[in-house]
């Protein structure tokens, strides 16, 4: 329940900030949210989400709380980097990727630690058994999390630029 409340509060505050301070980023927020949701639906077999309130689950074990959480991580990273780096799109991309991946690894460590998430047997059979020091996350997350972030960030930044006219 603590995680659910925390994520909802952060998401509401983030959305309020976007509405009052960065209206043009609301489209980006929605795109990231939808992209994360699509990704979670398509990769549902990789992990098992559990130990959250019943209302936190949307379809199967896909939790909209975790969807909001990942979205918040990516959006906050994007907002920070875009404030600091004004010009180079490539540099912005890689810094957003770095910051969101780092936050993602910390977030993953938390959800694994409180047993909200565990990896499916298909995944655990492929893991090396080596963990990243201090965060207790499999070393393979150094690949999985950045790849997840790359695909979401690219999708969001592409669709954000696209004019939605046919």
């Amino acid at each position, binding site marked *: 329940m603590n995680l659910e409340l925390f994520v909802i509060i952060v998401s509401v505050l983030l959305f309020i900030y976007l509405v009052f301070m960065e209206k043009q980023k609301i489209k980006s927020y929605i795109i990231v949210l939808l992209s994360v949701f*699509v990704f979670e639906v*398509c990769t549902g077999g990789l992990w098992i989400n559990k130990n959250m309130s019943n209302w936190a689950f949307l379809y199967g074990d896909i939790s909209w709380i975790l969807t909001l959480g990942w979205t918040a991580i990516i959006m906050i990273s994007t907002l920070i980097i875009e404030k600091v780096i004004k010009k180079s799109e490539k540099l912005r991309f890689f810094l957003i990727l770095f910051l969101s991946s780092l936050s993602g690894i910390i977030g993953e460590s938390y959800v694994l630690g409180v047993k909200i998430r565990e990896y499916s*047997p*298909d995944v655990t059979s492929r893991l090396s058994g080596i963990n990243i020091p201090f965060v207790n996350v499999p070393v393979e997350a150094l690949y999985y999390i950045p790849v997840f972030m790359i695909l979401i960030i690219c999708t969001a930044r592409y669709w954000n630029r696209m004019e939605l006219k046919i």
Partner: protein
Amino acid sequence: MNTKIEVLVIIATLTLLGLFVINRNKRAIVTFFLSILGVLLFEFLFDPLVMNNKFHSWTYIFHDVCFILTLGWVCIITASSVIVNFTFKRSGELKKFLLTLCMIDVMALPAEVFLVYYGFRTYSPGLLKAMGIYQSFLEHDNGLIPVKWLIVPPEFIVSIPLLFGLILSFVKYWEYVIYEKK
């Protein structure tokens, strides 16, 4: 059959690349290599859920990630992108994206069904268990829709276009970054 698929994909890839080189279509070559990157990122991610079988051992690059299948998907993505960009030059970006995605899905969905039907691809129990609609068909098999017709889970009709949408967005984003006017 596996040799035929391997030869066909390699010939298709070389033909496609050859056409791009002859026409000096640098953008298409860039799309090709970006597609390889996008598809490989996905293939490594989905490696625990999907097993690629029956290909020759030299085609496997990591666990059971088969570069023949990678090239197959890349050819589908690149050919669709180039054809749509050429045919609908003056259309808006959204229209071109949706048309490219439709063209990809028209080829990719039957290709996936083919691969599963002939045993070149199988899905992990974990992935099948996550497919709620597929599971309900299995549990409530009353003969109305023969379950044996379900070569791939019905969810794939939606998830395959969505996944290719993510890969295509990755490719299009990096095309924009590479060709961004300075």
